[in-house]
């Protein structure tokens, strides 16, 4: 893998969004991944709808939580995703109002990525931003810098938050993952969280996945 990479500089990442008082991080992580895949494979960056997943992905539980693998399946079965503008975010579940005619993007499949962080970095640099799920220990009070909680406190077995890897690099020799969160721009570093890379910190390597767009 290249020593560092940042898809934000290459136009593959939309603005930081805000899930509000709702446990819909899984929807934001997946739409962020599909936005990147659509940009890299079809050349257009579109901001896609999380509300469609909250309302129409019956395998998941909207604000009570969901799994990226279910969300990819739902997007395939529904026939695609509408844009954020066409199906705007409300922050709570409503009746499904999806229209295949309005869908702007589709996906063909989804894959599970390696748990090896070097391989994850290589995949990210070549294929695009990655949906991951981490233990959110400390994030309630995170302001800036590279987080590296003690392993017992940030156990990889207690995953509870889905986010998007958009890049990686080093800050004064400390390797990091650049992570797009969905708590708005007035949290963390303009909405981004930086997590230590290389030690499986907070389980960042346990649930890496991506959609596939042919």
């Amino acid at each position, binding site marked *: 893998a290249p020593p560092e990479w940042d898809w934000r500089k290459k136009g593959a990442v939309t603005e930081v969004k805000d899930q509000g008082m709702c446990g819909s991080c899984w929807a934001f992580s997946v739409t962020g991944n599909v936005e990147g895949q659509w940009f890299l494979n079809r050349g257009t960056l579109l901001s896609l709808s999380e509300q469609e997943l909250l309302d129409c992905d019956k395998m998941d539980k909207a604000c009570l939580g*969901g799994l990226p693998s279910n969300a990819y399946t739902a997007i395939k079965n529904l026939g695609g995703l509408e844009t954020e503008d066409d199906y705007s975010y409300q922050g709570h579940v409503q009746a499904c109002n999806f229209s295949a005619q309005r869908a702007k993007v589709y996906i063909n499949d989804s894959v599970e990525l390696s748990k090896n962080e070097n391989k994850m970095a290589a995949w990210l640099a070549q294929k695009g931003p990655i949906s991951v799920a981490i233990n959110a220990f400390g994030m309630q009070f995170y302001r800036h810098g590279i987080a590296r909680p003690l392993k017992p406190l940030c156990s990889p077995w207690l995953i509870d938050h889905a986010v998007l890897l958009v890049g990686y690099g080093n800050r004064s020799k400390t390797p990091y993952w650049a992570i797009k969160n969905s708590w708005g721009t007035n949290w963390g570093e303009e909405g981004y969280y930086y997590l230590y890379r290389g030690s499986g910190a907070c389980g960042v390597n346990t649930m890496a996945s991506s959609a596939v767009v042919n």
Partner: protein
Amino acid sequence: VPVPAKPRADDEQAWDLSSPELLAPARFALDMYNYGRAAGMRAVLGTVRGRVRRVGRGSLFSLEATMEEPPCNDPLVCLLPVTNKTLLCSFQVLDELGKHVLLRRDCGPVNTKVPEYGNETFSSFLPMLNKDPLPQDFSVKMATVFKDFMATYNRTYETKEETQWRLTVFTRNMVRVQKIQALDRGTAQYGITKFSDLTEEEFYTIYLNPLLRNGSGKKMRPAKSINGR
């Protein structure tokens, strides 16, 4: 039932239950403990013992109290009816000029050993609270910081009680932040964020995703590995 005990250090008062000084902080601790509970679901105070330490212009009360939880028969609220449950709680309440702030609340079943005060490891995590004396006007300072937080994040609370409760949560979170900061080996800085007035439970319930703990769900095919370039 008063439980006399000998003082542990010369400068500390003995546990003195009869002192009417304990009434106000004990009642405040009980109010905070019962905050948000419906009538009929509130715990009542059992035995209380406490000691007081003069700090700055106020007093720092360390209380040990038993809380009698009411029986829980409502099938909607609890899965199994629970007979009366007694918890042993330790509280630290700062009283400055009549203004109370709850600094610590630890509760557990009666037979759980409550951590001994003065336990070095414990105290090493709370430098703010272990300054002796506490910073002057600690609660006034904390109230000022809390007001800044409210202005920064445009926070409003409906009642005075809610504001008091959120100040208590905010203060406790400042203590939690110190622990998290002390235990981070990276370069991260932790501090006040827009979530600083939420309890850990509220934050977890509202913003996080418990389904992820069950693993990644439907099996996806593995991605082809990237052939190095």
